[in-house]
């Protein structure tokens, strides 16, 4: 994981509530076994016409969209399916953060593991951001994770919440698995005490040929 540093960027507004992960990356693109190429499929069904050509009026197909590293979305962003392909697609497109009033739990967790920052702001700041970008598409915000501060285009700032542990991982560019594996002795000690368990291998390993 790369270290998450302070940055200033334009905004890509998508003023729609409840954008679910099926919109972020439609299920038919989940047949891949790698992470590559998902950025081109981001918001596919909103972004391309029936023949697969980019819709010229959709923001992410325009230079303004390409120039923005912060997505500004409506309430409750990222609900639905647990697919981590959603933050993979968003980061591959070039986004580093998304602003909303709230995020679905699984999406938020997946994002933090990919150094993609979900920024939850109060409703009034959220409204002000949409107004600012409507008035001036080149308006910028500054994202400062260390201070948990988002500076709005008018120079005012709001703080945003983030899990302290996830924040540290993002700032230092370390992923969680290393931390978990350090605790192997505790895991082994726990396993020694477990009482209720199943053995999935009791039925044999391969229970039907491919």
């Amino acid at each position, binding site marked *: 994981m790369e270290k998450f540093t302070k940055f200033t960027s334009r905004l890509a507004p998508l003023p729609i509530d409840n954008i*679910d992960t099926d919109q972020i990356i439609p299920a038919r693109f989940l*047949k891949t*076994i790698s992470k590559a190429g998902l950025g081109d499929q981001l918001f596919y069904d909103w972004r391309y016409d029936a023949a697969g050509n980019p819709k010229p009026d959709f923001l992410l197909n325009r230079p303004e969209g390409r120039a923005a590293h912060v997505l500004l979305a*409506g309430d409750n962003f990222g609900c*639905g399916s647990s697919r981590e392909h959603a933050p993979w697609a968003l980061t591959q497109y070039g986004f580093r953060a998304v602003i909303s009033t709230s995020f679905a739990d699984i999406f938020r967790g997946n994002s933090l*593991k990919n150094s993609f920052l979900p920024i939850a702001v109060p409703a009034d700041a959220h409204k002000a951001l949409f107004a600012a970008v409507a008035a001036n598409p080149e308006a910028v915000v500054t994202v400062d994770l260390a201070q948990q501060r988002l500076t709005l285009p008018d120079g005012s700032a709001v703080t945003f919440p983030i899990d302290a542990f996830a924040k540290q991982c993002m700032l230092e560019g370390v992923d969680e698995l290393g931390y978990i594996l350090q*605790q192997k002795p505790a895991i082994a000690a726990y396993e020694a005490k477990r009482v209720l368990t*199943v053995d*999935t291998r009791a039925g044999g390993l391969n229970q039907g040929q491919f």
Partner: protein
Amino acid sequence: MSKANGAAAKPRTIIEKVWDNHVVAEREGAPALLYIDLHLVHEVTSPQAFSGLRERGLKVRRPDLTIGTTDHSIPTYDRSLPILDKIAEAQITQFEKNCREFGIPFYGPHSDKQGIVHIIGPEQGLTQPGMTVVCGDSHTATHGAFGALAFGIGTSQVEHVLAAQCLLQNRSKTYEVRVEGNLRQGVGAKDIILNLISRIGIGGGTGSVFEYSGSAIRSLSMEERMTICNMSIEGGARAGLVAPDDTTYQYVSGRPYAPKGTDWDRAVALWRQLPTDEGAVFDKHIYIDASALEPMITFGTNPGMGIPITAPVPDPSGLSDPLERDSLGKALRYMDLPAGQSLIGHPVNVVFIGSCTNSRISDLRAAAEIFKGRRVNPNVRVMVVPGSQQVKEQAQAEGLDRIFKEAGADWREAGCSMCIAMNGDQLQPGEYSVSTSNRNFEGRQGKGGRTFLASPLTAAATAVTGVVTDVRTLL
């Protein structure tokens, strides 16, 4: 430190008890390390996790607590035919390779136990009360019906569990959903959960785990409880559970992986300690009067946009919040529906009976009751997709397949099918369906497709009339 030993005096909810039982370590300033008892893996959300293991040179810590199945991208046509979609085939082949390489048991396309990941866990007796269950799939909450703490995870976390059998997790809020009273005829589990989501909205349970309680929940079968827990995520909660009781124990008993003999007695004794203590405090509550419920149906593009089937589709102009008004307006434009009218009588092109929400034997029996002696409307394509090969066999043993086929419905092989439309089963642009699945998002069942979510009874009734139908008129 786990609270399991120390603070026993404080009454706890079942959610807290299962949590406390699984805390491996808790360090200041970090989420708890939570042990996972059962990890279900499927072809779509696992490939990148296995790649990660290879890159780091790691093994699967507990293949004996892990099981794989193929469900999302597998076709539901005759299994003796080749898989036409080469990308899907490559994904399924890769899954097999991954399971073999890491020693994980799996149910391949030709296994008689293959099925949707949330159907096979309970069916095989792998899902048991008090467990922690995870899967790279948001409907993992299904397993909560057994009093397990079960939740969906992303692919990074799939890798974590494969490597360490543990996850870093923060404690959730507790949210009691109390459902009291007797359901009326034609109203079932699906209607309870659609009603809950229509009330609290699709973000209402964010950050919480639901405990479903009350006399209406107690009187439900395990299969019906699974239908309710399944859609917890649609209310924003990562997990939802029902405390185990005799109904639970009867269901689990005798299944292939259930404890046997003295192990069984010991397990039941432990399971009986799980239900929420008298006086335990929840962070949130909601109360639903089951006797007032009607069959529910969704009209919009998220599962919270649900109404009693006789009620009119809401009018966006009545909403004061501009974003909400736009969202509802956008949904109605996508669905091409007028506000202010009930959906009853609206023509549909497809009826889909299946998915981890409603593809168990009781769902198929309910649908068959309606199909019996009737014909599918000639304008409707009807797909009945059993949740697993075991469900399929059971249905065939009961002759349900004949009822479906004689009615003119398509009886298929087990899988997710049109719930997620990855395997070729899908709506065409502009088509309408009544589906027993769990998501009506734009394009979820095929690009440009329009989904009304409802119960198996409502779906079957619609299949025979060709238009959205209040099943109570056919009972």
